[in-house]
């Protein structure tokens, strides 16, 4: 992290630092993590700082919260280049780079209302083949519908 960022947001003692979120997407990352504000977590965010790799990026620090693997997968959908650092006692103890798996299951719905995977009475979990990682493009395993990056973001926004 740059010196400038450190000036804006102080270091955290225990928790998670998510870096390289595409500019403006950190609110959606919060939604993925189910953080609405009432949970009491101390959260610091920096939005739209200059980034050589991404143009503009967001950074987020969440105190006293570690991420589950399914949460990491979901973050990968909207921030495919994010890095996730676990911090313990001011030290980074684990560094993870998110990576979209080849197939994702159950964490997103197909946008086609006529898709069999949207029928709650059928024993089926929505499943998607990852056709492209940057930008995110998913293909429904059942009906073949394309799910674009914007549609993924819109779905998380709705879920919030």
């Amino acid at each position, binding site marked *: 992290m740059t010196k400038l960022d450190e000036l804006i947001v102080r270091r955290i003692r225990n928790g998670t630092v998510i870096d390289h979120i595409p500019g403006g997407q950190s609110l959606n990352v919060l939604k993925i993590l189910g953080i609405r504000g009432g949970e009491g977590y101390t959260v610091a965010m920096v939005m739209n700082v200059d980034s050589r790799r991404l143009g503009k990026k967001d950074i987020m620090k969440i105190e006293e919260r570690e991420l589950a693997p399914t949460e990491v997968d979901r973050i990968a959908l909207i921030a495919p280049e994010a890095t996730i650092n676990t911090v313990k006692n001011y030290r980074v103890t684990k560094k993870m780079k998110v990576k979209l798996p080849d197939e994702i299951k159950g964490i997103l719905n197909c946008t*086609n209302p*006529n*898709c*069999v*995977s949207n*029928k709650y*009475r*059928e*024993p*089926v979990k929505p499943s998607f083949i990852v056709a492209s990682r940057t930008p995110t493009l998913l*293909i*429904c*395993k*059942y*009906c*073949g*519908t*394309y799910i674009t990056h914007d549609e993924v973001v819109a779905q998380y926004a709705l879920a919030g």
Partner: protein
Amino acid sequence: MITRKWSSTLGGVDMFNGRDVISISDFTRDELEKIFRAALKMEKSGKREQSLLKGKLLATAFFEPSTRTRLSFETAMHRLGGSVMGFSEAEGTSIAKGENLADTIRMLDSYADVIVMRHHLEGAAKLSAEIAKVPVINAGDGSKHHPTQAMIDLYTIWRELGKIDGLHVALTGDLRYGRAAASLIYGLTKFRPRKLSLVSPALLKLRKEIEDFLRNSGLNFSEGENLEEIIEDLDVLYVTRIQRERFPDPAEYEKARGSYRIDTELLNRAKKTLIVLHPLPKLDEIDLRVDETKFAKYFQQAAYGVPVRMALLALLLGAVRL
């Protein structure tokens, strides 16, 4: 006995036995050509009943109406000496009481040796194939796939013109929601037609996923709205129905209907060898006078439905090996 003829002339690994038929994309060119050759043999055996599938039972699960597809599957099974059970509408079955698709398929799976199904939900056949142990054949799922129709369409071109490679094929009508057109496009990418022209009103243009698929396939294709510009160069004209309910404005529908109507005046400018196909049912997108011309091959196409489906059933149930 036809059984002996099969085994004596053909051999090798069986890539068909027990397989599901969900999308035409799942088949290679080589496999499609094997189905064609098997269909040709079935065609030559005519209406004579065979015993290749004696003792086998086909379940027809038509949650949506069908005439040709269901009847040609039933005919195919009967001709091969097998029997058929099932339903042709959800009414009068437990589905009308609210039973889900999965439970219905579990039941059919335990009764029958192969299931043919049509359902309004997209991906329904894929889900059913995951549930059933016996082969599931998709006879139409929503606006997505109709693989056996595409096999018949390709077989018709192959039979009538002797090849698919090198031809200029045009598809017209509803290319957005029509599953027959979509499946034929996927199927054509397995071959090397000279050109594919997609002629439809702007509202009914290809869905993006099919367009991307086409682009990635490397097939030479173009989209347009005017059939008159290309009619003289065509080898195959594939016509599909334009449905009124797709248009928000009735005036738009009337306009589209008028400009995509195939009549003898248009066909006078075509090559003598042009064939006109249609998955049927047709309404008024083809002028009735076209039926009597040598261009009209859609009734023959429907007739080919039986030998192609016979070939497929015999292959999936391991009664013939290629």
